[in-house]
């Protein structure tokens, strides 16, 4: 039921031109849920996350956050959010880490991290700076606080993007391949951070190619195929005997 779920998505559909990328996706997440979203490249995982955040406007479907439905209106034959204020408010509660990082190039890493807390949440600056330093330490790039994004390695940028999203202290986090640029040691590190967040009750939706994460950290796994949820369930079931042939074929290569 919507009133107990942190995040609830119902029958989302989205096309780009003639190409139907999402063909009716539904999902419900409660406090502390860690949901892995798996699927082949191009199956619509990023698009799905972007629709939840309203960076793409779904053609049809409902999105509820904290029991509040995002109101939509028709304008010129196309779907549109009815209230920009509602959207801004909801977005500030949904954190997002982008596949391509999207750090603000005109700000240093520290500025990137404190931007949201200071200017959107209007928290006192000094406190934000302190927290930001702590976060940067946590992800291991404390020494890069005053560098610009263009001067960082790929993995450093990715960690900065994670720190930026966490600094907003969102209730729900949407991660789009948060460890793609990281080495195994750092992957372990970041996964540890995420596990701690989950224990603190944060809801997380994680697009990942990291099967070990899906198996060991998440409490639910969703396998997308061609814009639909092909199968979903607890990791033990999904990776165990209950695996559908398609999913088995997909993760079978894992461990190589």
């Amino acid at each position: 039921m919507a009133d107990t779920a942190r995040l609830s998505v119902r029958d989302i559909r989205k096309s780009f031109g003639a190409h139907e990328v999402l063909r009716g996706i539904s999902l419900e997440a409660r406090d502390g849920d860690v949901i892995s979203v798996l699927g082949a490249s191009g199956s619509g995982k990023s698009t799905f996350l972007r629709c939840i955040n309203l960076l793409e406007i779904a053609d049809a479907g409902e999105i509820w956050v904290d029991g509040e439905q995002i109101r939509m209106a028709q304008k010129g034959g196309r779907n549109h959010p009815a209230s920009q204020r509602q959207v801004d408010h909801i977005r500030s509660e949904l954190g997002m880490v982008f596949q391509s990082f999207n750090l603000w190039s005109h700000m240093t890493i520290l500025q990137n991290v404190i931007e949201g807390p200071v200017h959107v949440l209007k928290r006192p600056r000094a406190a934000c700076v302190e927290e930001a330093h702590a976060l940067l330490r946590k992800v291991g790039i404390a020494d890069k606080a005053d560098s610009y994004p263009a001067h960082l390695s790929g993995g450093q940028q990715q960690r900065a993007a994670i720190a930026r999203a966490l600094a907003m202290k969102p209730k729900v986090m949407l991660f789009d391949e948060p460890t793609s640029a990281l080495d195994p040691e750092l992957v372990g590190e970041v996964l540890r951070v995420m596990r701690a967040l989950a224990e603190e009750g944060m809801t997380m939706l994680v697009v990942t190619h990291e099967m070990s994460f899906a198996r060991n950290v998440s409490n639910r796994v969703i396998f997308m195929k061609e814009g639909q949820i092909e199968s979903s369930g607890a990791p033990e079931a999904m990776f165990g005997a209950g695996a559908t042939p398609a999913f088995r074929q997909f993760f079978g290569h894992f461990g190589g």
Partner: protein
Amino acid sequence: MSTLELLGFGSTGWGALLLAGAGITLAVTAAALAIGAVLGAIVAAAKLSGSVVARALGSAYTTVFRGIPELLIIYLIYFGGSSAVTAIGQAMGYEGFLGLPSFIAGALAVGIISGSYQAEVFRGAYLAVAKGELEAASAIGMNRALRFRRIIMPQVMRYALPGMGNVWQLSLKDSALVSVTGLAELMRTSQVAAGSTRQYFLFFVVGGALYLVLTSLSDQVFDRAERRANRSMPSAMGQV
């Protein structure tokens, strides 16, 4: 009379008048740039907006004010504005001429023109801002105004600076047309000096040199701003 005397500051030299003219040129241009920045930002926003009406209005503004000769716009604002003010004055029982002050009319006219140039500069710069960075701003719940102030503005400034330098130059020179409103700016002062002394070359060259002085001052400001804005950019252009 020797050239030095002609350009000096004594009672027989034109130095003081020319400098005063340069001062007025600078003031008109600065005022016009400020007016134009406000208009330009509004018009650029209109042209980039989703509303068909706003886009049409924005295009009309940039087409008309870029498209018709500057002198006519100045005439329209100065004489048109003056007629309007005089008519109001007469309705209230005041006899005679109540023109818009020359400076205000001039700055307004040049500002309106400058706005149409700046709108295009801003629009071009906006298009150069990486879309992903705008999405990242939306994603943390920045509203439109905040996104504009914190993410778009600083980056637009970075990409717009060379173009703004151009607009400044254009306005600097459009301000020379303001003399029809009776304002003794640099161009008119040079022409008056040339006509009064019949030393056309001397005063045109000196006038041009004073414009270059104004340019070098503004270039310094723009250079510094550019360097500041580019701290965060990788420098791939200068490499092999």
